[in-house]
């Protein structure tokens, strides 16, 4: 369960984020959409305690993210390549994460098996550093890393961007499977309305830092979003 309360982010005079109240129950697949500069990434960064909120607070499972750290063990995230160790090979990176999360080698093998299809033989077992991977493969590594350690909550920023069409479909299947099987909460921001409406139970629309729509009806989502974005 994630709650956001009276959250505000201000750079000098410009208010970039102003969320009065937002509650995301466990097991929900939460979609975040909005045009460039609407504050999607900023919201995620504040929720992950990467950026300081000007006022207000975010709690994950009852813990204030800015004050404690233990929630980090149960939250996985991939926002951008700053969250990867780009000087390692993907194998080494997963191995390091395995040790950080205290998983066994069998755990890691099981975990990576879920990604065999998504990786498409282009990620593991290659003598290539993460920094030399293509943008699509970089994203795949980040997503697989965010799901490690059996997290309750997973944040993904633009997960479909840069992926080829088959990988996009595979990723969708993966997310659906994960929400069904293990009651994971997903928070996904995306510009791809088709994908995000397909996998998410709920979609929130941001405009200039404010929540202007909170859609929960799966059938009505697409038409309402299309109406908004065509203006």
């Amino acid at each position: 369960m994630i709650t956001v309360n009276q959250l505000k982010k201000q750079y000098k005079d410009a208010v970039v984020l102003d969320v009065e109240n937002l509650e995301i129950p466990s097991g929900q697949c939460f979609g975040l959409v909005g045009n460039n500069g609407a504050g999607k990434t900023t919201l995620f960064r504040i929720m992950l305690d990467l950026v300081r909120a000007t006022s207000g607070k975010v709690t994950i499972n009852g813990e204030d993210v800015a004050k404690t750290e233990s929630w980090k063990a149960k939250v996985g995230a991939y926002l951008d390549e700053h969250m990867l160790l780009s000087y390692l090979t993907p194998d080494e990176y997963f191995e390091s994460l395995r040790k950080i999360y205290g998983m066994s080698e069998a755990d890691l093998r099981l975990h990576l098996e879920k990604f065999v299809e998504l990786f498409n033989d282009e990620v593991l077992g290659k003598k290539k550093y993460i920094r030399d991977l293509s943008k699509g493969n970089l994203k795949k590594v980040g997503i697989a890393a965010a799901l490690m350690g059996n997290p309750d909550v997973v944040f993904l920023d633009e997960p479909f961007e840069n992926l080829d069409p088959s990988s996009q479909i595979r990723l969708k299947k993966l997310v659906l499977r994960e929400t069904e099987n293990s009651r994971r909460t997903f928070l996904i921001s995306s510009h791809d309305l088709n994908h995000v409406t397909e996998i998410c139970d709920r979609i929130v629309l941001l405009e200039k830092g404010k929540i202007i729509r909170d859609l929960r009806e799966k059938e009505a989502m697409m038409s309402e979003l299309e109406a908004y974005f065509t203006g």
Partner: protein
Amino acid sequence: MFFTLIRLQFLKSVRSTSFAKSLLMNLFMGFLALLLLSYVFAAGFLLKRIIEQLAEGQNPLEVLNSYLIYFFLAEFMYRYFIQKLPVVDLESLLHLPIGKKRIVHILLFRSFISPLSLIALLLFLPFSLEVVGGEYGWQGVITWLGSILLTSWTLHWFMLWFKQRFDDSMIGLISVMAVLLLGTGSSYMGWFNLGEIMKPVFDLALLSPLPFLAILAFSVGSYVLCFKFYVANAYLEDLTEEEDVRFVNQSIGFFSRFGLAGELANLEWKLIIRHKKSRTYLMLAGFFLLYGLIFYKNPQYATEEGSGLHWIFIFVGVFITGIFMLQYAQVFLSWNSSNFDFYISKKNGIESLIRGKYLLFIGTSFICFLASIPYAFFGLQFLLLHLCCFLFNIGVLMHVIIYFSLWKPKPMDLNKGAMFNYEGMGAAQWLMFIPMFIFPYAIYLPVFFLFNEVAGVIALGVIGLIGMVAFKPLSQVNINRVLNNRYEISSSFRQEL
């Protein structure tokens, strides 16, 4: 076209995000360059007198000709370390409808506009007008000075090729060492005198244009070599082949005993091995081990009575046992600037990252200390000196340097070279040199005046030991500093400021 490209270059440097921050630095570097060049020019004016002083009764021109080759050897060395490669700007131009050859010509030309190209001219112009002009007339001046200048410029092109070709590889380093050893060692050991062998060439240059023409041909040849190499390699891929060695699993098993911090120390070690900048620092630590050879047996620092520990040796000892840590810690967090969010988003990530770095520093310092033990051959006092400096380094200096480095850390691109690359260096990083010099002496000097130099050195060690006992609270100070500033650090590393 040419001027458009030059203008783009100019705009690029003016508009880079770091320009305003590094403006002062650039001014300072420019001032320094100007100062050094004016020294060179002054030395050029005094060259005749200097030679007359050093080699009394001999013809200055003869003497100079027999030592010219050493000047070029020196030039080879400083060019190897200082000269920058012009390939960086290639990326944004390659896709445009400008011929590759043209781009390379422009890049090479631009690289030529540098203070380094002026040194030979400034140093030898006054001498050639004064001495050569008097004896051999205008033709002598032109061919003699021309030969020297062209040799210097041949080295410029050769070095562009050499550095790019053997960039960062063992072959390059070995060849440079070989040149150095052959050049200086050969006449010292009495095998052959390089100066005397090359002397006839420059003697001949006074009388006939032949050497001048030959060197001109060399110079053109080296430009063509350089040009062809750059054109053939004008692609975005790395010019040098990836070394597979770097993929070998170089984890240090010992660290894994320290839990998460040890794990992150292992990652940091990989980071060091896999980036050019940090590798250079590591190599420097190796070179600095030899630093003592210059000082310890130098008669200038020999003390008549007592233990034979000159006060300057403290400084040498601190450097020998801690140079890697001192340099690396200067930009303590900037090493992780491109993946700082990774550590923030892990539970206890930042704390373990810093503890891991501490582990690594202690480890490398300890290895440097072990490697410096053979100095005991010069006298047991050096063993004591190194032990105490080592203790002081990890007990006190380490915390101090890290504390200073956490004042507004700046992002840094690890894939750029290390020499004269001041990325990540802010005012704080420069000011840090002060405690590095002052702290050891602040403890050593009072005890030295009260008792003697051995007591002073032991005092350093004791203070270091106390610092080690207080490791937990001292390191916690730095950890808390990072934790409290984590938002600012992470946003500056994302370059949002």
